[in-house]
């Protein structure tokens, strides 16, 4: 293994609570704890997969890191090109603007994330206009380059988004994200709104862009099978918290958290003859407005014990690079891909 790269982004105990207001006077009656104490880091030129069920706070986490929401608490340390570290969580939107060139997002829904009234040229070129990078012919040229890079025909730059298919629209979104040569991309479920056949195309595109441009990416998905090929490391989220974070291999083959085990078991094997035994989780995802006491996963956990109902586990590095938030991480024998059990 080569020497670990420098850390580009470090999130420490990030919290994002949304107040619940009710009644005539719109008094705060509680909070939706969408992100509740998230800590992780991303190294340069690394892809971190962020996985979890819908409603677990993945998207909120991504948007909070880009300061589309103002975080309730926590720190987001971003390292600039010159080595300067900035805590994004506390700077103003004005100070944030230059950083928006370096940190970009790919949106989930290619249908609602493109303004229907603007041509592809205007959409892809907009970041360049906002940051005064290019105008006029130069802009057109840059847009043509970007369209080629994502596999679109530059002849179509005067067209409107509704004239494109879902996969093409997502390519437009990716071109827009790449337009300012960002250092960090947060891809928020970029393929989950697409057909499976198109998903592969877009994933391959992202994969090759990652290789060619050395992109650093946080890849959000609700499905391990989507991130397993593109990610270097995978973080698993459950109800606003991280339950497990490790290299892709370790997460897939040697999961240490019962929730990860269930997710891994849901990856369909490529061979139809293999017996596919999926662990079905009982019950519903708890509401982030009213999370259960103790370990958030205990009501659905097959291995839950008394301790889990009372005491909240913390994220502990049980092996190098392998963080798990479970009281019994070292004791349980969990199944990875192909039924590999941890010794």
């Amino acid at each position, binding site marked *: 293994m080569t020497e670990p790269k420098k850390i580009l982004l470090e999130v420490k105990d990030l919290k994002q609570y949304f107040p619940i207001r009710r009644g005539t006077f719109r008094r705060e009656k509680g909070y939706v704890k969408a992100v509740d104490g998230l800590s992780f880091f991303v190294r340069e030129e690394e892809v971190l997969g962020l996985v979890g069920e819908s409603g677990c706070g993945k998207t909120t986490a991504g948007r909070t890191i880009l300061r589309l929401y103002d975080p309730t608490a926590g720190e987001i340390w971003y390292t600039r090109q010159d080595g300067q570290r900035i805590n994004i969580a506390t700077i103003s939107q004005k100070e*944030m603007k230059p950083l928006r060139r370096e940190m970009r997002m790919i949106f989930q829904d290619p249908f*609602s*994330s493109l303004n*229907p*009234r603007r041509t592809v040229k205007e959409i892809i070129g907009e*970041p360049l206009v906002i940051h005064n990078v290019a105008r006029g012919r130069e802009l057109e040229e840059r847009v043509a380059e970007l369209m080629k890079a994502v596999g679109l025909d530059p002849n179509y730059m005067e067209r409107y*988004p509704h004239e494109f298919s879902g996969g093409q629209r997502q390519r437009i979104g990716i071109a827009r994200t790449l337009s300012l040569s960002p250092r960090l991309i947060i891809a928020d479920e970029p393929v989950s709104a697409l057909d499976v056949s198109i998903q592969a195309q877009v994933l391959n595109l992202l994969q090759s862009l990652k290789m060619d441009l050395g992109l650093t990416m946080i890849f959000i998905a609700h499905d391990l099978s989507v991130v397993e090929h593109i990610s270097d490391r995978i973080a698993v989220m459950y109800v606003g918290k991280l339950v497990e974070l490790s290299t892709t291999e370790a997460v897939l083959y040697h999961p240490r958290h019962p929730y990860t085990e269930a997710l891994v078991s849901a990856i369909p094997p490529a061979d139809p003859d293999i017996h596919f035994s999926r662990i079905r989780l009982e019950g519903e995802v708890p509401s982030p407005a009213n999370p259960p006491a103790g370990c958030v996963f205990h009501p659905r956990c097959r291995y839950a014990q008394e301790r889990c109902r009372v005491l909240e586990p913390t994220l502990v590095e049980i092996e190098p690079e392998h963080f798990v938030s479970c009281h019994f991480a070292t004791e349980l024998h969990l199944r990875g891909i192909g039924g590999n059990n941890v010794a």
Partner: protein
Amino acid sequence: MTEQTSLREQRQIQLEEHESYFNLVWRKFRKSRVAIAGGLIVLALAVLAIFSSFFSPYDPVKLNMRSGYTPPSRIHFTDVNGTFYGRPFVYQWKQVVDENMYMHWVEDTGTLYFVNFFVQGWEYKWLGLFPTRLHLYGVAEPGTIYILGTDKFGRDIFGRMCLAGRISLAMSLFGTFISVAVGSVLGVVSGYYGGRFDNYLQRFVEFVQSFPQLPLWMALAAVIPSTWDQMAVFIAMSTIFALLSWTLLAREIRGKVMAMRETDFVLAAREMGASDMRIIFYHLYPNTLSHTIVVLTLTIPSIILAESFLSFLGIGIQEPLVSWGVMMREAQTIQTLGFNQWIIAPVLFILLAVLGFNFLGDGLRDAADPYTIT
């Protein structure tokens, strides 16, 4: 390769000629017959109003007491003896008193006056610029042609209707323009920022809406000093109509923007670092345009009606300015109307204008959003 060589040539990119927004709208609009009819009506009224002097054979403001309340001239092709003439002609009306001492208008069939086209008549300035005497139609002196009759002062009603169209249409357009400008900007801002500003603005909208419109119009119109000149009165009246009609649009636009505010493309714009102004005017406002166009075409007829109403009551436009409502004032007493039914003719233009704009709005509503997959 020179500097001038365009990018397209350099890269051999054949950028396809793309249809503009208005082309797309037009293509869809064209398919609706009702909308085309509405558009033609509106266009015809506008032409009549703009070139009103050309369409009126007599000066519409000059008094001519002797021919007061002349009935509309009848257009004939055959004379009393049954002789057919290849071209239209009119007889003069004359008043006779019957055995019961009632006055009657009868046609003097002694002389016939052919209707001539593109004739020389009273002098006016074409579009206010070039002096000319050309008129669409007329008859030789001493004959007269009043295709819709005359009013109390002997003025040609058709000519006056065309002239009145200038004020009526211009006022409704001007009022609608102010109304849409105020309504859409406040609507977008209110919807986008939300919070306290939105709350206050919406309560203000309710306040304005809860006024009974008619008494408020009357009160405001009554406040305009009679010493003001015509232009000032015109602007003041337009503003009054505008300030009472913007609320509907503001509400609707606010609703649309609130729905759009949370969509991903607005979030994407914020993620790029776009300013609030850019998001509002570059992203949100164009998406409310189709709605604005429709409300615009519905506000115009409502202002035409309101203006006619106020002028009819005598608190709107005052003579010597003439609008359709002002002309209707003469038809206020049953007696006058009973004897001279033709003075109600301006109603025709009001009806046509309201219908025309409504049809147009109907067609535009379907056509104004060409970016949806249908």
